[in-house]
């Protein structure tokens, strides 16, 4: 099954959709589509980051106090986990392009495992914060003059990390799906665009967390 080039009339591979003239055009379109989608994600998360920034400008001390309530160890480990998972998926896509099927599947599944471990660790964080009465709207009780600022911080914390975790979950599911299809030979040196684009999405999820980490976990740690 050859990939045809520019002319209609030559053999069209099964994965080539009707509106495209050739696989290269389809790949260009899909890739641009994913990048545009990633730009929208920057704005989705951006609203939350902007709200955080404005509130922190209004309550610098309160936010520092609030940040000290977060679990920095877990947060740091989670960051390391996501960074590693990004490198693994990059290696995985590389393996697909080289035709190294088994390595690719292993790397993709490892990425999914790391992503899942991120979610588990974050679940522990949420649980701990619940026991410490740090969940606004459900169970929030903090003493002191910074209480309102702490509540604001934790509102934003749950919005941002919750929204991010949703993205991680979707990413893990899609990566497992892609790994399955790699294992069955659907992707390889002749067709690797969907895994590539999945990896782009995963890198975005990583980038969001790269910014979440210092804003949530590292404020006011020096005392």
């Amino acid at each position, binding site marked *: 099954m050859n990939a045809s080039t520019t002319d209609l009339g030559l053999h069209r591979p099964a994965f080539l*959709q*009707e*509106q*495209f003239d050739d696989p290269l*055009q389809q790949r*260009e*379109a899909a890739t*641009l*589509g994913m990048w*545009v*989608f990633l*730009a*929208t*994600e920057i*704005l*989705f998360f*951006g*609203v*939350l980051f*902007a*709200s955080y920034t*404005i*509130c922190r400008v*209004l*309550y610098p001390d*309160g936010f520092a106090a609030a940040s000290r309530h977060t679990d920095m160890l877990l947060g740091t480990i989670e960051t390391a986990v996501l960074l590693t998972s990004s490198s693994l998926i990059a290696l995985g896509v590389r393996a697909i392009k080289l035709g190294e099927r088994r390595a690719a599947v292993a790397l993709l599944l490892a990425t999914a495992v790391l992503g899942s471990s991120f979610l588990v660790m974050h679940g522990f964080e949420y649980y701990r914060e619940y026991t410490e009465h740090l969940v*606004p*709207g*459900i169970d929030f009780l903090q003493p002191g003059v910074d209480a*309102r*600022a702490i*509540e*604001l911080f934790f*509102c*934003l914390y749950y*919005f941002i990390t919750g929204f991010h975790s949703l993205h991680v979950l979707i990413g893990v599911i899609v990566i497992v799906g892609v790994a399955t299809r790699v294992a069955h030979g659907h992707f390889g040196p002749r067709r690797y665009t969907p895994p590539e684009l999945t990896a782009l999405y995963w890198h975005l999820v990583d980038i969001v967390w790269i910014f979440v980490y210092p804003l949530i976990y590292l404020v006011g740690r020096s005392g």
Partner: protein
Amino acid sequence: MSAVDAGVMPHSFLAGEDGLRQWLTTRDHKRIAILYGLGITFFFFLGGAAATLIRLNLITPQGALMGAETYNKAFTFHGVVMVWFFLIPSIPATLGNFLIPLMIGARDVAFPRLNLFSWYLYMAGGAFTVAALLAGGVDTGWTFYVPFSTLFSNSHVFLAVIGVFVSGFSSILTGLNFIVTIHTLRTPGMTWFRLPLFIWAMYAVSLVMVLATPVLAMTLALIALERGLGVGIFDPALGGDPLLFQHLFWFYSHPAVYIMILPAMGVVSEIISCFARRRVFGYRFMTYSMLAIAVIGFLVWGHHMFVSGQSVYASLVFSLLSFVVAVPSAIKVFNWTATLRKGDITFEAPMLYALGFVGLFMLGGLTGLMLAAPALDMPLHDTYFVIAHFHYVMVGGSVMAYLGGIHFWWPKLTGRRYPEAWARFAAILMFFGFNLTFFPQYILGYEGMPRRYHSYLPQFQVLNVLSSGGASILAIAYLLPIAYLLWSLRYGKPAGDNPWQARGLEWQTSSPPPTENFLRPPVVQDAYAYQEPAP
């Protein structure tokens, strides 16, 4: 290739698969455009019904029809439906979907299934909004200001917010689809600066949709969370700031008005060029202007907040930028006018709509500039002056351009011609009805009548009655096209491929086009070669 008997064209995208199921699972951008057209028309009349109630109520100073709460629900519903379910999708989702692949010589958009999904999201959002109405309505105004919407309103804010949230994704996906389509599916030879201005307009509007709508989505989500959980960042009692909501809301909602006007500008360029038989004056400036409007339009949102308690310095900056954003619009008005010069002008219905657009948009735009000056905005904010301003640009502007576009491309879409005399009559009636409805509102606002009140001081009655009278004329003018366009589907004269002798690739194929748009690959020509003889 010419369609003599349009209704029986063998390859027409309208022929063939005709069941409901085929329509609801179509991937054909032309059918999806029609699906959107039906939805948009439905919501237009729904929003129009709300407007009718409003104008009927305002015939007497005490409020002839409704008490305060019901009135609040009426104008909220009118705003929500007209903004998100009519104006924003109108030209892009119907004319854009139909024309973009045709104008660039492609077989379809880049992501046809995503396109259909966008329509379903639009309808789902609409369903939630109608549900909010049926459940008892929302009374916050289409702007959902906090703390009323989060803390104090007893109406169905949640349902309405979900409706808008869902429809926002329709916008985003449509914009994404258009951007990728225009970048990657242009036929060989169709370089960027050979694209019709309508395509540039679609591109610019897609940039705005893609960059602005996510912000709206998250802001609405934040309202829903605040309302649902009693927490959040907008409540002063909890340390939040209501102005944060306003910043986030208007960051989307101001560019939203450019979502509403940019496509109209694209349509008007095509129509004026065709019916003046002249190349558009200053093509490059027209493209740069549209991009400039799209970009600068993101930097002016604070002009909605001059009286909100926003810092004076921020107001200064926003005001200055608002003046700047008027410049590219003005350039476009100059260029449309210059296009007419020495033209061989005829006044078919599309041209009447387009010319009406230029005049009314200009009036609306100039009054916008007045509002952009904080000193003037102080007394005019939240008065009928603002209402008149935005109806001039959105209704006198966008709606007229939409109708002009519908008439211009009706033959291409359906293979039929509409009855020209009735269409001209409706256009002229609309122009008069519109001005009678909304010009008095400038004066009312200047005299101090506030907006969003179900009653008013007796001295405002005469102008209100004039305005309501104008609205009844406008209503007739809107109903007429429905009647004669539907009539034309069965009894209209067959259109032929190019009834207007227009340029542009869409006129190179049959009317209606075949499913794959072009039976032979189209030959890229100058889209504005009106001063040369037709090829």
